[in-house]
């Protein structure tokens, strides 16, 4: 699903453009409406256009206050959290504030605007007391502000709903896919493990290395088959998986390959989404062990800091990597996708790709509990 960045991106330039577009469209539409609606007084089109446009500008401060407080305070803090009573209370308070702000701007500027346009002389519009401006300013200001707030709120809530739907469908798809995979795998796992155990028994005396590998392979398979259907697993389990995987990979390559793995034990009992890090490790081996590199080298390092996991993966690669499609590899793409879905706003992924070296730095917020604070 391709999503337009103009509508969905959180980058400042898109957001600013989006909001500006909203206000411009709104102003133009109001001006247009004023042309269509018959006027009570016999005014020319030009006058009506002027009135509509400047009338809008006059109440802009009130509109801004109402719209942005609704969008970034009342909606996220109360409406989306289903605190409707507080939301209603806040909307009433906001309406009163907006009305007053509108009255003030009306009192301050309305005469200037009319003078500017009609060229009315000074004596006609001597400044009156503020209170006499309140009724008109309040009612008119609130009316136009509520119209724009209505539009803005509907857009916001529609977007929120769409985002949720989008995430749900993507997650659902992923889940179905994963279930299918595990169904396939669960056909005869007992046969698989018992057979592995028998081979283990046979190789135990004749080939200790082989039996060691079998244990690691079994652990790896068991982890993938049985643990990975949970949303979160223990960080120590995920680390063990990586260690097993690295131990198995090591044997495939020559002794030249320098592997430096440092995964310190997790003493805080944190949780992480299963199989999140493995594709990154796989990637290292896929590309860092190439025969074209004179000194193949892989470094996998993790540390914890204030509830965050910092992972650093470095691998050597040929000096002139001729289109090894590295950065765009399917593995990395999947990791990015999963991170966006599972750790929205809770991770940083930095990928540096240069001749001779490839670096991935990942920082993500770990969960303290197994049923975590996953949203969606």
């Amino acid at each position, binding site marked *: 699903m391709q999503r337009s960045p103009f509508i969905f991106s959180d980058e400042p330039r898109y957001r600013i453009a989006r909001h500006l577009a909203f206000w411009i469209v709104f102003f133009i539409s109001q001006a247009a409406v004023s042309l269509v609606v018959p006027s009570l007084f016999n005014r020319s089109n030009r006058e009506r256009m002027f009135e509509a446009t400047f009338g809008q500008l006059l109440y802009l401060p009130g509109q801004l206050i109402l719209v942005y407080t609704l969008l970034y305070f009342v909606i996220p803090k109360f409406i989306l959290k289903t605190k409707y009573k507080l939301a209603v209370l806040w909307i009433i308070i906001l309406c009163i504030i907006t009305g007053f702000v509108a009255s003030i701007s009306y009192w301050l500027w309305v005469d200037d605007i009319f003078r500017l346009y009609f060229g009315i002389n000074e004596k006609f519009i001597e400044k009156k007391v503020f209170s006499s401006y309140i009724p008109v300013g309040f009612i008119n200001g609130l009316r136009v502000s509520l119209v724009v707030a209505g539009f803005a709120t509907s857009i916001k809530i529609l977007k929120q709903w769409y985002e949720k739907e989008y995430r749900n469908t993507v997650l659902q798809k992923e889940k179905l896919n994963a279930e299918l995979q595990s169904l396939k795998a669960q056909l005869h*796992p*007992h046969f698989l*493990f*018992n057979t*592995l*155990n*028998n081979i*283990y*028994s*046979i190789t*135990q*005396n004749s080939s200790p290395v082989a*039996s060691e590998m*079998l*244990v690691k392979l*079994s652990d790896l398979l*068991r982890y993938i088959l*049985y643990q990975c259907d949970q949303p979160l697993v223990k960080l120590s389990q995920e680390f063990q998986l990586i260690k097993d995987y690295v131990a198995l990979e090591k044997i495939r390559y020559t002794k030249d390959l*320098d592997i*430096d793995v*440092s995964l310190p034990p997790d003493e805080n009992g944190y949780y992480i989404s299963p199989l999140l890090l493995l594709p990154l490790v796989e990637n290292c081996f896929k590309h860092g062990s190439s025969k074209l*590199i*004179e*000194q193949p*080298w892989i*470094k996998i390092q993790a540390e914890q*800091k204030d509830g965050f996991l*910092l992972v*650093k993966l*470095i691998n*050597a690669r040929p*000096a002139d990597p001729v289109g090894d499609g590295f950065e765009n590899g399917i593995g990395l793409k999947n990791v990015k996708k999963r991170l966006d879905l599972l750790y929205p706003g809770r991770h940083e992924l*930095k990928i*540096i790709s*240069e*001749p*001779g*070296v490839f*670096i991935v*730095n990942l920082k993500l917020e770990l969960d303290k509990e197994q049923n975590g604070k996953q949203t969606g």
Partner: protein
Amino acid sequence: MENKPVKILNCVVVDDEPLAREVIIRFIERVPSLKLVAECSNAIEAMTAVQQNEVDLLFADIQMPELLGTEFIKILKNPPQVIIITAYPQYALEGYELDVVDYLLKPVQFERFLKAINKVFQQTGIATPSVNAGDKTETKQEPYLYFRTDRKMVKVMIDDIIYIEGMKNYIKIITEKGVIITKNSMAAAEAMLPGDEFIRVHRSYIVPKAKIRSFNNETIEVGKAEIPIGKLFKNDVMRSLQG
């Protein structure tokens, strides 16, 4: 400390697969305080074995023909201590409800087996016999990186780095052992180094915090070099060095 006699535990192994039994029997033979009294291929045989001998410890598979291991354990009167050995992780919970000592997944490593045996000794209150699993503590090696110089990869110990200087298309790594020139960017160097040990003090300089000898508002002294602090980096540097 009084010297308790080390008790020998009588063991029975139940598994329908002979090769699986062999693994456990070999393990039992490696532990002096364990003695095998019977091996059985099904639960009925095991029942007889438990009744006829004085059995302290039972190694049982769960999924066996005729009678499930879990059922078997339930019907035993005065059951011995039980260690379940199985290919099925999904029985773990049921296993703990049966009050088993440990739950091992096939294939079992000797180290893991020993851990389970030690649990048995702890629960029976007998002095734990010293059985060494052979310490497998990873030898912690000094952290290092590789950099590509002119057609060669050079290993650099991170502790040896005095500072890194960025030039136009390459970087210079000044170490205790010499200078290395590599065609990487400052961003790459920064990403490779441990973030809490090194600090970027200037667009073209990264220094190890531990090697800073002195600093003021404008410069930092590392080794014999005096390195300027970049305007954009000043606040971060000061916060990091003073904090």
